[in-house]
């Protein structure tokens, strides 16, 4: 009996001892053989600080067609700090003053003086001098879209146009290069040239959404720039600048880019149908000019 008590006292003491020791001794090795101590991360890429304006021009050059008239004209303003932007779509028949050439349709500026004159004409119209000009033709546009494996575009209403070849149901449609071109060129729709110009902007924003979905790493960006380089003429942009612009574009949520058409009306000049710029456009230009974002329009 007494020896039992002694053993019990010893057992209690040993238990206390183990408890105290366990408080201070390190955990058994097998419980924490390897553990993650720290994860550190840092990221940096140079981007433009200020507002950037890019003029995107699609010209109608193709085999059998003389000249290089601008068929699609878009002034894109991006505000990096706000993460917002504006796509101002300018109908190709807009009647403007072309520096050194007098009044004419804006698409003639490209024939007269190429990207440089196009940029100066935009400045004469809007008061905004584009920082960069990106220009492509029909072939470049279609092959660029094809190389990016097509683009999904939300078609706003059914189309069945023999002239452009645009035949689409009213839903999101995955378009090949040729189909995207047909959608962009179809002018036999309600709103005519104005609506067509907006559709062109829609294709560009849809392509941006597609690219963001497919990949936004630096390697992806280089891949996209590679496609651009081989199918478009890029004026006055170094590869480093273009990379920074590409990263900026991919950081931009297309839903935060306003897709607006230059306000105007239909008119006649010299026996040809033209688009006249509405007086309200001056306010829009001023709104766009200050920070690349439309606050009041």
């Amino acid at each position, binding site marked *: 009996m*007494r*020896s039992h*008590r*002694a*053993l019990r*006292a*010893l057992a*209690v*003491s*040993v238990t*206390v*001892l183990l408890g*105290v*020791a366990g408080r*201070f*001794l390190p955990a058994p*090795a097998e419980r*924490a*053989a*390897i*553990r*993650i*101590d*720290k*994860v*550190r*991360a*840092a*990221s*940096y*890429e*140079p981007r433009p600080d200020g507002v950037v304006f890019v003029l995107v021009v699609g010209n109608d050059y193709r085999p059998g067609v003389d000249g290089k008239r601008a068929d699609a004209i878009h002034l894109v303003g991006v505000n990096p700090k706000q993460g917002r932007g504006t796509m101002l779509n300018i109908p190709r028949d807009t009647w403007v003053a072309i520096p050194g050439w007098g009044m004419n349709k804006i698409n003639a500026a490209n024939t007269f003086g190429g990207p440089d004159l196009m940029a100066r004409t935009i400045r004469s119209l809007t008061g905004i001098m584009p920082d960069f000009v990106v220009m492509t033709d029909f072939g*470049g546009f279609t092959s660029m879209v094809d190389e990016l494996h097509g683009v999904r575009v939300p078609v706003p209403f059914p189309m069945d146009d023999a002239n452009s070849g645009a035949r689409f149901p009213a839903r999101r449609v995955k378009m090949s290069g040729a189909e995207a071109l047909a959608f962009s060129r179809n002018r036999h729709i309600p709103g005519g040239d104005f609506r067509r110009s907006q559709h062109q902007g829609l294709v560009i924003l849809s392509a941006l959404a597609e690219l963001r979905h497919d990949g936004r*790493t*630096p*390697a992806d*960006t*280089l*891949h996209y*720039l*590679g*496609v651009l*380089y*081989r*199918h*478009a*003429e*890029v004026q006055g942009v*170094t*590869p*480093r600048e273009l*990379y920074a612009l590409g*990263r900026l574009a991919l950081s931009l949520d297309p839903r935060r880019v306003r897709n607006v058409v230059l306000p105007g009306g239909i008119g006649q000049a010299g026996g040809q149908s033209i688009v006249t710029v509405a007086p309200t456009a001056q306010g829009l230009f001023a709104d766009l000019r200050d920070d690349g974002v439309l606050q009041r329009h």
Partner: protein
Amino acid sequence: MVHRHCCAWQAGGVRIRLRKRHLAALVALLLVAGVTGALLVIRRGGEPELPPPVPVATAYRAAPLDITKVTVVGGRPGTRPRTLGSGLRRELAAAIERHLQAAVDEPLLSGKRARAYEKTFTATARPRARHDRGVLTDEALAPATAVARRGATAELTVLVGPDGKPAIVSAEVRLRLAVIAPRATAADRATEGFEVDRRATLVLVPERGEWRVEAYDVVVRTQRTRALPLDAFLWPFPDLTTDRNDAAR
């Protein structure tokens, strides 16, 4: 007859008798007090002092950067992208290796602040790289007593400009290191190790005659390991300089 006492002492005319159970309790109590006291002493700095950190690594195993994949994009309008020439491939590998050596290996091995690493960045990126020093370099683990590269790989995407010249390179770099921690002593070398897994996207552009880092995205995972095998290192390491130069090449 059963003896009631197991022990008896005579001291100063006083006879002390202990029963068995009393003795067991006393022994256990002394044991508890002794061990607890010893543990508390250790916790309060009674640990034998470690020798001062070793100023330079005494072992280093290099693994030259291995370029595992190259993709060339861009080029002149209407042309297909060409392949990367062996000269440019070597040039790019050397630039990445130069960056890794300056930011990671050098501070670990020398125990000094990384001095040359800022020069591996472009002028545009340098101020930010200085700010991100804690992540871009492994100064925090320096000075290591031993460093071994488990592997160093890079996948390259090369953008060729319209003039046909390589203009921008994106490098997906992975560097895995085994490091003996700076506080390690000769006795506990096997239990004071770190595994560093460094994954970085580096965007390189040519500037002032060299490819330099224009942009980066770096994630570093540091794992402490209790059982770092000693065979992770070449030990003893005969000629540090020779192997480091080999790695740089």
